[in-house]
């Protein structure tokens, strides 16, 4: 499984755009990039997934350059409620023999949003 590197923490203010970059230099051809969000006292929650270029959904955008060795999660106009830990995961999307996927979480990025 590809190893990921992301900042330990980031600070921002309400209304700003936040970009969290993740490095994954040894990403494999079959690997997808997935981001999860975790609030205190809750389990992680899927945010977005992509393979290349740009993916956008109702909560975030994911930018992936052509070489796919890094990716950037973009959160537009953050609010206090976006304070959480964000995990970047890289792995094959194919179903394992027997079913399901294996996700490997790193230590994540603690995002703190202030007024």
């Amino acid at each position, binding site marked *: 499984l590809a190893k990921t590197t992301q900042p330990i923490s980031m600070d921002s203010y309400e209304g700003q755009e936040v970009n969290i970059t993740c490095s994954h230099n040894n990403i494999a051809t079959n690997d*997808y990039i997935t981001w999860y969000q975790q609030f205190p006292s809750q389990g992680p*929650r899927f945010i977005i*997934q992509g393979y290349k270029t740009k993916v956008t959904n109702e909560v975030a955008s994911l930018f992936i350059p052509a070489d796919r060795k890094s990716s950037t999660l973009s959160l537009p106009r953050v609010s206090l409620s976006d304070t959480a830990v964000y995990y970047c*995961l890289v792995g094959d999307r194919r179903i394992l023999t*027997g*079913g*399901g996927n294996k996700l490997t979480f*790193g230590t*994540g990025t603690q995002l703190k949003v202030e007024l």
Partner: protein
Amino acid sequence: EAGVAQSPRYKIIEKRQSVAFWCNPISGHATLYWYQQILGQGPKLLIQFQNNGVVDDSQLPKDRFSAERLKGVDSTLKIQPAKLEDSAVYLCASSSRTSSQRNEQFFGPGTRLTVL
């Protein structure tokens, strides 16, 4: 749609005691996962079930941890005997084939275990 349910939410025990956690996955999800999350770290997969069969238990400390999913729905994770280093949040997650195709797992709120 109901989410993944876990109980209890909190548990405090003394070392060498036993403890069990329960998980009810999202209806229809064939794959169930148990993770251990130590404070300040990301979740670590302990065991993965497909229906009632084990897919991966390579990181489960089998000398003290056990898990079962007898009817392919609910699951229990047991620790016997507990050690101080088992203090962590134990997360249960589930996925369907459709959600697995986008690497999406649905997590429960977790059980926070404190071993004294």
